[in-house]
């Protein structure tokens, strides 16, 4: 009788001991952390890659900053990390976690909605800023302190004020997307617009398209999509919370560029290199584009120590002026 509880204790202890440091548990597994807005494009490419390599996949979707925190604060290191804002790499992850990053896709700000949204039949690329200010229209946005989409929304509002030449338009647009319509990240808003709780949400083209939402395309001068408009984007800025309470950082407008990297301590380095090379292959690009992601024809690598397999897939060039300053 007494042998049984003893055996279960031993089993529990063994189990607990076995839980430690299982990050590298299976050699046949690829772990990817990515921004919420990359969930679907990365997933599609991962599924295809996993089938051909006979590996299993572990994908974690979270906000770009939250994802960076998983590495820096929690010590969870994936094989590949892909973020919605390339600036997170130099600001938070270099040089401790990664030595290089690769710009691989771009995106644009849109207003996403459904057929049920109020005034869905009337809204256009020209009148959107009037429609979202009508009484009873609920507009959602993500948290500017946590999510790049959140502060990009504020930048877009400012650019709209300049573009349309309407004084105080930015403040008024913000007042029509009040704090209680804010959620942590833009992916959290999709369910709310689908459930009809919001009529319009500030989002990315890739996300709206992958989720099957309708969208208002905004003029290139305000949607942060066009590298050619970098200088105009950089004329607006927004101040959000910094790295410590009371601290603040200023973000200037710049084109939305997605970047990825392989952490220095990636548990399955060789597999990670093959996956990134696959992402940048014609097939990988085609799969991601089919989900609505605007993949760059020529990815741009920044930093040093890029693995050969990745360098061969991309052709490293010096970074063009990002327009950030």
């Amino acid at each position, binding site marked *: 009788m007494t042998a049984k509880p*003893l055996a279960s*204790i031993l089993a529990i202890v063994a189990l607990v001991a076995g839980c430690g440091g299982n990050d590298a548990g299976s050699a046949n597994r690829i772990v990817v952390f990515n921004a919420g807005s990359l969930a679907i494009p990365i997933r599609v490419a991962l599924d295809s890659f996993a089938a051909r390599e006979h590996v299993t996949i572990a994908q974690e979707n979270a906000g770009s900053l939250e994802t960076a925190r998983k590495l820096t*604060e929690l010590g969870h290191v994936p094989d590949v990390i892909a973020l919605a804002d390339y600036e997170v790499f130099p600001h938070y992850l270099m040089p401790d976690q990664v030595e290089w990053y690769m710009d691989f896709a771009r995106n644009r700000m849109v207003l996403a909605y459904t057929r049920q949204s109020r005034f869905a039949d009337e809204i256009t690329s020209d009148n959107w800023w009037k429609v979202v200010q009508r009484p009873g229209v609920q507009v959602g946005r993500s948290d500017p302190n946590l999510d790049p989409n959140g502060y990009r929304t504020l930048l877009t509002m400012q650019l709209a004020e300049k573009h349309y030449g309407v004084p105080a338009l930015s403040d008024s647009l913000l007042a029509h997307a009040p704090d*209680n319509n*804010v959620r942590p990240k833009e992916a959290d808003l999709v*369910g709310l617009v689908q459930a009809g709780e919001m009529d319009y949400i500030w989002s990315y083209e890739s996300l709206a398209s992958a989720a099957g939402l309708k969208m208002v395309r905004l003029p290139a001068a305000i949607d942060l999509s066009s590298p050619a408009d970098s200088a105009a984007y950089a004329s607006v800025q927004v101040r959000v919370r910094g790295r410590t*309470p009371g601290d603040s950082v200023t973000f200037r407008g710049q084109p939305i560029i997605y970047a990825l990297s392989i952490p220095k301590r990636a548990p399955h380095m060789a597999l990670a290199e093959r996956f990134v090379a696959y992402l940048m292959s014609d097939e990988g690009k085609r799969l991601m584009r089919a989900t609505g992601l605007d993949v760059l024809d020529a990815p741009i690598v920044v930093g040093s120590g890029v693995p050969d397999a990745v360098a061969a897939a991309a052709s490293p060039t010096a970074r063009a002026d990002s327009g950030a300053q």
Partner: protein
Amino acid sequence: MTYAAAAAVLPRSRSSHRVASVVAALLASLFLLFLFAPIVRLVVSGGAGGVTRLFTDSELRGALWLTAVTATSATLLGVLGGTPLAYLLARRAFRGRAVVAALIDLPLLIPHPVAGIALLLVLGRESAVGSALLQAGIRVAGSPVGIVCAMLFVSAPLYVSAAREAFARVDPRYEAVGRTLGDPAWRVFRRVTLPLSLRGLIAAGVVMWARAVSEFGAIVILTYNPKVVSVLSYDRFTGFGLHEALPVAAALTILALIPLTLLRALRPESGAGVAP
């Protein structure tokens, strides 16, 4: 028959008893260690910072206050609606009782973000209930009402099952005596059933309240701003990192200890049910 009595009638050697006690003690210690080590570690790491921030951080104070108000409201609503239901489930044999009893546990089973979405579909402004509430000036999403709804949904089942057990433990013969003395059902409940089950009901309420305080997943779907403490700690973790999230979590842990201890102390610990 108590465990001790059962053990006494079983023919067993002294040494096997001793081994059993040692094993039981070892298991219990391991288990307690598992439960308390993370909490102790949390309070040690963030406790001092947490207490300091209670005075300096108005956002934290606001979140603690909001958490206390919403969790208490949710618990009161749970007690109001859950007590009659628990009584019916414990005392009345009605058609479909087993089904209702099983359904009650369902909210515990549903992943919490899914619970938030389900609530949104029923209480959102496009729903019948939600639009009626909106007419009355109450929007569920993005307001404290949404927080209370999320807390109520995920924690009320705990209250109902514990309250049902508390009622079931009351000997029906006492209630029968009350009725034979001519008391109406309500008076029997108030004078006999309620006092005898009160300890269990309070314990059920405490568990529900604690579960409501800890809720995150369903709340963040419905209401991100204004922030309760669970949401604030997530926000601090994402925005600033571990060193800013720890004090928030520690402050909640320390403060939550006060009502938990008080309510447990309120219960008359008669020692009933403990083998000598």
